[in-house]
């Protein structure tokens, strides 16, 4: 009897060892690594379905961990402020553009002693910063034959004239808007464009320019008329498109948001037939030059990012740069980073854009100049 008990116990011990070994193996195989991404909201329409697709495909790191991507849209500058305060610890930061990277690095150095952004991050998709304007209004100003720019719009916004001067009294005042420059990339580049216009420059913007009383006065005068709303460009654009020409005449947006809106409008027109509310919108490429949203994919240089997360983040980056995903970027209105993809529909006049534009850019200033320009915005 004793012998039977001993045998039975031995079998139980052996079985439990086998079971626990199997479980350990299963757990190892079933481990997962999370890549958290904060990104500029202007690429939400492109990224959201791709994140879902990538997660459903159960991609793995070289170590066998299943990759889970968690992506949150947020104002490009708002996210860096939260990272600096320690409230946000993402693996990847993908702002709308690289313009603010020197400021992010400068602030990061002050706090952590090194740069937040190292190396040369890859661009995910491209889109120029444009002045989005309702097409009838743009035409009233002479578009597309007459080139328009930052200074023209600022003059319109600050003048006592309203649309009556252009034969459309029913449109009321000229209302121009952009996002908040403390939180959003398009907001800060709007301020920089205003400063450039005030200084009558296209490059080499200096602190002296910012401190020039004439420039400060010009910026303050424009600021007094600006309608600004929110910390994120895509949400601001949604509000503009929803509320129509009486809410805003024009706003600083990205080209892809104009294309996306026009795609929706044209689809609705086909299904629902034309209604007066569906006013088309066009992209105006400022004649003095503009900035590009290059949507860099930045693996943050922070202690909380593990090697496994880096590997996982690189796998997701490669997925986004692969041709099928780049083609989807084109579908939603971006100019793909993959140059083997031609710039075809919907990047066309029917969708309110011109792929031969912009003709020139404004130079991205140094960190201290950007911060000084931001400080001109006192609200």
């Amino acid at each position: 009897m004793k012998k039977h008990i001993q045998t039975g116990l031995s079998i139980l011990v052996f079985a439990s060892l086998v079971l626990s070994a199997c479980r350990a193996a299963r757990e190892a195989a079933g481990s997962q690594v999370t890549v958290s991404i904060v990104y500029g909201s202007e690429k939400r329409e492109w990224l959201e379905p791709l994140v879902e697709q990538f997660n459903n495909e159960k991609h793995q790191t070289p170590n066998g961990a299943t990759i889970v991507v968690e992506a949150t849209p947020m104002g490009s500058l708002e996210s860096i402020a939260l990272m600096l305060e320690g409230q946000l610890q993402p693996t990847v930061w993908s702002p709308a553009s690289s313009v603010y990277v020197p400021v992010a690095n400068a602030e990061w150095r002050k706090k952590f002693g090194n740069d937040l952004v190292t190396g040369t991050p890859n661009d995910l998709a491209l889109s120029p910063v444009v002045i989005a304007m309702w097409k009838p209004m743009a035409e009233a100003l002479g578009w597309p034959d007459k080139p328009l720019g930052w200074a023209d719009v600022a003059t319109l916004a600050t003048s006592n004239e309203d649309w009556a001067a252009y034969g459309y009294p029913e449109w009321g005042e000229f209302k121009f808007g952009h996002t908040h420059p403390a939180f959003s990339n398009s907001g800060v580049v709007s301020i920089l464009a205003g400063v450039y216009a005030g200084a009558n420059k296209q490059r080499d913007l200096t602190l002296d320019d910012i401190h020039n009383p004439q420039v400060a006065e010009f910026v303050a005068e424009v600021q007094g008329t600006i309608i600004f709303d929110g910390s994120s460009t895509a949400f601001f654009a949604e509000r503009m498109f929803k509320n129509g020409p009486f809410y805003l005449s024009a706003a600083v947006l990205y080209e892809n948001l104009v294309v996306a809106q026009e795609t929706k409008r044209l689809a609705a027109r086909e299904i629902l037939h034309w209604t007066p509310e569906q006013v088309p919108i066009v992209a105006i490429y400022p004649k003095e030059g503009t900035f590009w949203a290059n949507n860099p994919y930045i693996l943050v240089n922070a202690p909380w990012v593990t090697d496994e997360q880096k590997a996982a983040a690189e796998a997701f980056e490669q997925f986004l740069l692969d041709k099928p995903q780049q083609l989807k970027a084109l579908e939603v209105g971006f100019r793909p980073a993959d140059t083997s993809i031609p710039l075809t529909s919907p990047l066309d006049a029917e969708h309110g854009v011109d792929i031969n534009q912009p003709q020139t850019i404004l130079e991205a200033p140094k960190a201290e100049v950007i911060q000084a320009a931001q400080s001109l915005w006192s609200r």
Partner: protein
Amino acid sequence: MPRLINWILFGVYALTVISVLAASLISPAFRAVAYAPVRELILPPPEPITINLLYSTEKEAWLEEVIPLFEASELTVDGRSVVVSAKKMGSREMYLAVLNGEETPDLISPASSLQIAILQDQSPDVFGRPIVNMADTASCRSLLRTPLVVVAWKERAEALWGPSLSGDLWKRLHDVVVNPQGWDVYGHPEWGYVKFGQTNPLTSNSGFQAILLMTYAYLGKTDGLTSADILSNDGYQKWFLDLQRAIPEFGNSSGTYMKDMVAFGPSKYDMIVVYESAAIEQAANAIGRYGELHVYYPPTTLWSDHPFCVLNTDWVTSEKARAAQVLLDYLASDPTQRIAMLKYGYRPVVSGVSLHDRGSPFSQYARMGLQAEVPSVALQPPSGAVLNTLLDFWARNVQP
């Protein structure tokens, strides 16, 4: 009696087989003559010879394609197969890593002989002797060639210098990039300021070559550059630094820089200095985008000759050196060179591959300005010490 002879013959045969097998164990060179079924049954497979190769990033795509072909070709050295452990790196980073001991490669291949000249100059301080010698064709071989060219959006380039580049290219470019009026001077205010670009000379060979080209152009020389030319000539320093400081953004790699030119169009770069091969790689993508992209050959140029040099160091055994030669022979073979020309736009170093071969990008994109015969005068690079002086001068005064 016949039976005895049979036994003797069998004995000799058996002895021979055993001897060959024993010899194969000592030297894998005998392996090939050993009786195959017995060999495979008894002998352990010989250890392959591994060549550690450091190569510059420009030729990554070509090497990633041809190294597996080389390894599959079953070429051997003393009966041992050869495998390549290849690592890409910036050309300058490469020689610095060898000098500071971070890397111990058997074979290095920077983008041009400029880096070999610097390594030749600086290695005696570390190793007691030069570890490379470009003049020694037994250890250093150039395997790909491509000249430095100016790639520009045609409409803008022609506004600046007409249908072809003139001798005063750099002077004209300097004057327009430093002029705050920019393109307005040429009647095109809508193009903004003139956006000329090159890569960072500290991270990329094409940027290094570009600053050397400009230096020679200002001084009116084609060879014999000295450190005094760089350090003691106020006129040159002002001219050179004004030009460099007007460059809006230095790229870190030639390939990415060229790709950006196509991706962003003339709004970001009007013209850049880059390799002809990089321009060819993006030629198909540029068609129908932002206007016509054109390749211009400057009056004088520098060639990237992609030398492959076996290092004269303690860790490179004679076996590895011979294996490296087998690899270099393979890379210099017609089929491998043809891949480099047809797919990656490099000029071959063998006569068996012609730029006029069927499918050649030089014919396909001739409308872009590509020319089989390079019209530029080739400059003679100065010594490694002078090259280093120029790099240091740039790093002190321009580095972003």
